[in-house]
């Protein structure tokens, strides 16, 4: 899907640095997000990829101060450039229940999840729920809000919007529910949409519809998208920049071409090789990564990927830093967290 009409102008919208989000549990502290840094430019799509449990969702929730208790942001900055000219606001310092945070959530940063049923209220019609979101944002009366809801339902490509507006979530298909979520998220024209596995529960044909819709709306409204997924195909399709996470950390980061055509971290390389690709002459054996993701309370010493890494060496007993490649700084361009690419 062509992303030619993108209006990314490279001015930063959000800069996350050293973010650490933890969950104190009976068995110890889970470092769900550990020293995570990356940035999102205005109008840009940043893909966050990694296997389950690597901290993708908690990163997204941290950005909205929605980390479920007993989790909390322990360290780091989430600098949000609300207006291009003003000083940024550090979301990490804003109280989750504050009016300011509510305003940001309602108007500036929106989030959609994998399973829309969990965020839609089953006892209200979808029209009511969209109208509610509209009224939160704009001082309009009920009638206008309802008209806007119908417009939004039409805009996200659902047929017969004037009838659908009075239906309940369970009357809609999974693909339509996700469109309704997108309609609700976008009725306030946010500058950033966080989409957490938005199409994972959908069939490929419906996934293509929903991703296509997100791209169209992005071109029209100019918002940035943080797209969380485990599907490298979806990343290749939509992302400008990619963040690869493993065990709570960023292990590699770069442009979509860096990640797919010049992956440097052994984990990124392993992931790319281990997925069957449609149309590529099938090999009888897929090059797989041995073992599994470590338990968050039993992380190995040093590099977390060490026990599964074919290139492991003695130095790997220490945790490598995320460093920039080709003379770039770690915050700009292609960066990787691996001793193979760290000059000491």
């Amino acid at each position, binding site marked *: *899907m*062509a*992303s030619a009409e993108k209006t990314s102008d490279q001015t930063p919208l959000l800069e996350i640095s050293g973010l650490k989000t933890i969950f104190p549990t009976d068995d110890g502290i889970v470092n769900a997000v550990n020293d995570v840094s990356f940035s999102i430019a205005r109008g840009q799509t940043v893909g966050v990829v990694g*296997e*389950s449990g690597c901290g993708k969702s908690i990163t997204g929730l941290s950005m909205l101060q929605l980390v479920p208790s007993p989790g909390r942001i322990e360290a780091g900055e989430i600098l949000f450039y609300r207006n291009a000219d003003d000083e940024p606001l550090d979301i990490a310092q804003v109280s989750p229940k504050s009016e300011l945070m509510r305003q940001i959530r309602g108007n500036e940063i929106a989030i959609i999840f994998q399973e829309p049923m969990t965020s839609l209220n089953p006892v209200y019609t979808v029209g009511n729920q969209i109208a509610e979101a509209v009224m939160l944002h704009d001082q309009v009366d009920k009638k206008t809000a309802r008209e806007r809801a119908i417009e939004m339902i039409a805009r996200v490509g659902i*047929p017969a919007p004037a009838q659908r507006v009075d239906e309940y979530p369970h009357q809609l*298909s999974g*693909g*339509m529910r996700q469109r309704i979520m997108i309609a609700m998220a976008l009725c306030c024209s946010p500058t950033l949409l966080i989409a957490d596995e938005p199409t994972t529960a959908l*069939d*490929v*044909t*419906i*996934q*293509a*519809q929903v*991703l*296509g819709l997100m791209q169209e709306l992005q071109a029209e409204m100019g918002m940035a998208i943080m797209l969380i997924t*485990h*599907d*490298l*195909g*979806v*990343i*290749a*399709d939509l992302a400008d920049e990619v963040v690869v996470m493993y065990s709570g950390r960023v292990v590699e980061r770069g442009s*979509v*071409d860096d990640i*797919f055509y010049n992956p440097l971290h052994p984990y990124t390389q*392993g*992931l*790319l090789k*281990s*997925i*069957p*690709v*449609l*149309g590529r002459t*099938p090999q*009888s*054996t*897929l*090059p*797989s*990564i*041995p073992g*599994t*993701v470590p338990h968050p309370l039993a992380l190995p010493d040093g590099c977390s990927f060490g026990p599964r890494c074919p290139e492991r060496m003695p130095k790997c007993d220490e945790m490598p830093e995320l460093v920039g490649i080709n003379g770039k700084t770690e915050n700009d361009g292609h960066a990787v967290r691996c001793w193979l690419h760290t000059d000491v």
Partner: protein
Amino acid sequence: MTKLLEVNDLRKYFPIQKGIFQRTIGYVKAVDGISFDVQRGETLGLVGESGCGKTTAGRCLLRLIPPTSGSFIFGEEQVDLAKLSHQELRPFRRRIQMIFQDPHASLNPRMTVGDIVGEPMRVNRTETGSALQDRIVELLESVGLRSQDTRRYPHAFSGGQRQRIGIARALALQPELIVADEPVSALDVSVQAQILNLLSELREKFQLSYIFIAHDLSVVEHISDRVAVMYLGKIVEISDAETLYQSPKHPYTEALISAVPLPDPSVQRKREHIRLEGDVPDPSQPPTGCYFHPRCRYATDICKQETPELRQITEGVQVACHHSDTLALQGV
């Protein structure tokens, strides 16, 4: 190759009942007349969007649910499994096994791994005593688990390991055919590759045949020799895997392939995308004519009136489309 299974015109209609008298007011035609065969040692992939009847077809083949009609001719004996009584079916049961998507839900949490894997052999009295214990260890090792694992419980294992336990249990009675229903769909990508490799390896080692059900086309292409594409309870195309993906002959197959995002950004930017409109229709009220016509961009008048039959168009390629001879469809 010899034929292991021949399925003829399998149907499964679920009644829709209403009111206090549970009157039947219609049917969900979950599987609506499908025919295919499976050769010994072959993997047949079954793909299609959710709700198209893949799981129902698999469950019918195992007689976990009774088929509405149709026959499945199995083995050298050429026995029609669909017609056998439960008593007569018993000796055949062990020869066809199933692996499920969610290994967690299909393993009893209160049984040890050794008991789970050993249960089919105990029930069928194929092994006892120390021979049974040896066989359990042998099975666990063949799926990449260790002998110490026999005493542990399923919750102590990761998703991929639990899928290995399910596979070991399915292998216990030395089946000839395994119906694998979305066996890797719930797994992380790196673990998915391990399980796919294991399934290929076991197929060689034990001369198994698979019916591999999945909605992920890339996975199905990788593991299958031939692929059947289902839409709304019917098979719309069957062909060998490579031909299907390189030059699909049914518009639905073409659309499915087009919708798969390839993990290659520059290819992805250049590809033409066929966007299917709408959802899969309700199988209790399928469209007239070709079930795919409301979403098909090549549909003409005849498509709205006449249901196309599945017919062979070249050696090994069967398609159910009125226009397959004239359409030039794109593959990957």
